[in-house]
């Protein structure tokens, strides 16, 4: 009710007013005909009054009630609009629900997954097409709502189904992988039994899903095969293989590695710090290398470590290591291959020693040739020169001159003889062709024998040789060599002694060796010449106090022979005061 109702009230009032006046006037005329014209005048007055009052009412209504009425009208309209909106909302929700249902259906009906919702007694509540298809294939039954799934399953599946179904009912989700042969195709299916909850969070049944996992299983089989190949590879390789994690603990160790480290039980190694198998001095180096591999993704090649076996023995190993990165590209562990190179290192060392020996031998040979070429030429010059003088001038020479020349020729020949002898002896020692047969020798007797041999030359210079040797000292040495050493040193002592000097020979035991010392009080050795004595390269020789000559090879020979016995030869000397030459030889019994 609004403007319209206002108008309605006013119109109705007006019509009723007019009708009322006309009716009353009509009855008044019939009852009182005498009124005549006055009756009509009164009607006009009445109508005029009605018109005026209607106008008055209209204005009154419009003034006091119109606004209120409009408000009421508006409220009504709002309610109507709201109702309409609600109606539209409902419509939209309904559409949404429909869409949702379609989505849900699409989800359920997707071919990837078979889906059956079962109640507590394994009766089918809901299922999708995929479930219908596969269960049909396996059981030969077209499943329908309210059918009991357990009942229709083949016997071999029933037991497993019951077990896992019961688990799910008790809120323990279960999962089983099973192989089928469907339409001649091998199929792997992963069955999942999940409890189904209602709104009150109570289990009302089981959601039974089956997902085909043939591809996954094939991949797993492939993976297994690959792993087997790698395992075979690791077994076949002669190198040891290990995988160590970031923390330096062993994750894997190959059978070859176990054998190499002499570990009888793999549990002694796996999950244990790898440092256990390294020598202590390697720890620091190892730590920095692990840091390099893990934190800087370095590959290390040919790192050499001293390693410790389980039995405590050591060996040298060469390592190649590379980081193993996880999916993010961060190294979490590293793989190492290593091998025992102890033998190789030993061989290399042997080779080095051998090569040095060869070099030395070659140098000696060169030296030998050079000595033969040079030193033999001088005495040969004497031989050649004097014999040619004799030959060319024999008739002009006096008998004394001839005698003199013959004497020179003899001296030269003698010099050549001793030089060739020494050279031969030296080359024999150098090439290892000298006879070396050590035996027990009494030092006192052997020294005495050699002194006797050299007595003539000592007697010439009136030199007295004194010995201070206990009679029970024995050496274990080659007799010929011992004589040669002692004669060389003793004849040197005589050579460089002044006439009427003394020579002292003494012997003392020093641990497993016997030290023999020969002291003279003669010429001695100039300081600058001391380094030349035992060196074949400098080939140093000086004449004695009475111009006695030597070959320059005597001491060199002595050193070689003492070396052969594992002993050492040393000397102390002061120029013009004398020298002491000492050498050691193994103690005898």
């Amino acid at each position, binding site marked *: 009710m609004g403007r319209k109702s206002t108008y309605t009230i006013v119109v109705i009032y007006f019509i009723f007013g007019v009708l009322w006046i006309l009716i009353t006037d009509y009855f008044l005329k019939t009852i009182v005909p005498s009124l005549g014209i006055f009756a009509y005048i009164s009607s006009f007055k009445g109508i005029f009054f009605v018109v005026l009052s209607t106008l008055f009412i209209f204005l009154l209504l419009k003034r006091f009630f119109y606004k209120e009425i409009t408000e009421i009208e508006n409220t009504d309209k709002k309610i109507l609009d709201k109702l309409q909106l609600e109606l539209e909302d409902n419509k939209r929700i309904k559409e949404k629900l429909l869409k949702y249902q379609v989505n849900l259906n699409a989800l359920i009906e997707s071919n990837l997954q078979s889906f059956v919702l079962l109640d507590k007694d394994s009766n089918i509540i809901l299922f999708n097409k995929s479930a219908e298809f596969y269960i049909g294939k396996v059981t030969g039954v077209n499943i329908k709502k309210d059918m009991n799934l357990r009942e229709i399953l083949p016997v071999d599946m029933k037991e497993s189904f019951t077990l896992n179904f019961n688990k799910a009912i008790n809120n323990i989700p279960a999962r089983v992988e099973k192989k089928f042969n469907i339409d001649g195709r091998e199929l792997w299916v992963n069955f999942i039994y999940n409890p189904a909850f209602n709104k009150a969070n109570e289990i009302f049944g089981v959601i039974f899903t089956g997902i085909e996992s043939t591809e996954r299983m094939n991949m797993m089989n492939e993976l297994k095969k690959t792993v087997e190949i790698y395992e075979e590879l690791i077994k076949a390789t002669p190198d040891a293989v290990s995988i160590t994690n970031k923390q330096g603990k062993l994750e894997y160790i190959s059978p070859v590695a176990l054998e190499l480290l002499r570990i009888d039980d793999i549990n002694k190694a796996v999950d244990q710090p790898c440092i256990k198998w390294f020598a202590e001095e390697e720890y620091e180096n190892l730590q920095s290398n692990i840091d390099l591999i893990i934190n800087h993704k370095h590959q290390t090649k040919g790192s050499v470590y001293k390693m410790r076996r389980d039995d405590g023995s050591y060996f040298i190993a060469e390592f190649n290591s590379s980081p193993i990165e996880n999916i993010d590209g961060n190294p979490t562990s590293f793989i190492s291959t290593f091998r025992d190179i102890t033998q190789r290192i030993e061989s290399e060392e042997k080779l080095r020693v051998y090569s040095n020996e060869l070099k030395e031998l070659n140098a000696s040979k060169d030296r030998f040739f*050079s000595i033969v*070429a*040079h*030193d033999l*030429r*001088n*005495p*040969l*010059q*004497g*031989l*050649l*020169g*004097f014999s*040619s*003088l004799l030959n*060319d001038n024999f008739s002009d020479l006096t008998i004394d001159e001839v005698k003199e020349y013959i004497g*020179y020729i003899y*001296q*030269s020949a003698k010099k050549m003889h001793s030089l060739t002898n020494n050279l031969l002896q030296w080359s024999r020692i150098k090439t290892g062709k000298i006879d070396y047969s050590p035996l027990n020798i009494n030092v006192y007797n052997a020294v005495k024998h050699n002194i006797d041999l050299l007595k003539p030359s000592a007697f010439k210079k009136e030199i007295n040789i004194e010995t201070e040797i206990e009679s029970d000292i024995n050496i274990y040495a080659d007799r010929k060599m011992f004589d040669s050493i002692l004669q060389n040193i003793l004849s040197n002592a005589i050579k460089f002694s002044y006439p009427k000097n003394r020579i002292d020979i003494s012997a003392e035991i020093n641990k497993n060796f016997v030290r023999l010392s020969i002291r003279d009080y003669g010429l001695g050795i100039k300081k600058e010449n001391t380094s030349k004595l035992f060196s074949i390269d400098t080939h140093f*020789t*000086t004449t004695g106090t009475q111009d006695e000559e030597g070959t320059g090879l005597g001491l060199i020979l002595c050193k070689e022979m003492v070396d052969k016995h594992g002993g050492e030869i040393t000397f102390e000397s002061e120029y013009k005061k004398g020298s002491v030459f000492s050498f050691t030889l193994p103690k005898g019994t």
Partner: protein
Amino acid sequence: MEKLKILLFEDDEDCSFIITRLLSKNFLLDHSDTAEAGLTLAKNTVYDLILMDIGLKDVNGMDIVKKLRSMKHYENTPIVALTAFAMFGDKEKFLEGGCTHYLSKPFLSYELIETVNSALKV
């Protein structure tokens, strides 16, 4: 005609005896068995020829050759290297080092005389 003067450096007695014996007929020969004495002789007398044993006991004959060549009198004097060093390359080494002739030991009498004569161009 005055005899030509020869200085011999040689510390092997046999050798120096033989050389003296072979050359003293036709030449004036002085002999020294040490570097020091020989150089003193060379300073006091001007020799026409030097016979140098390279393998002296305490000094290398080539060092003496060097010293002689630095002395004014001996810039162009013929020097015969007289040596037992007769390995491959030795001769060239001595000739490069200042010697003009080379005679390896042991030598025969006529070889020495021929070498000396050719060095002195007589």
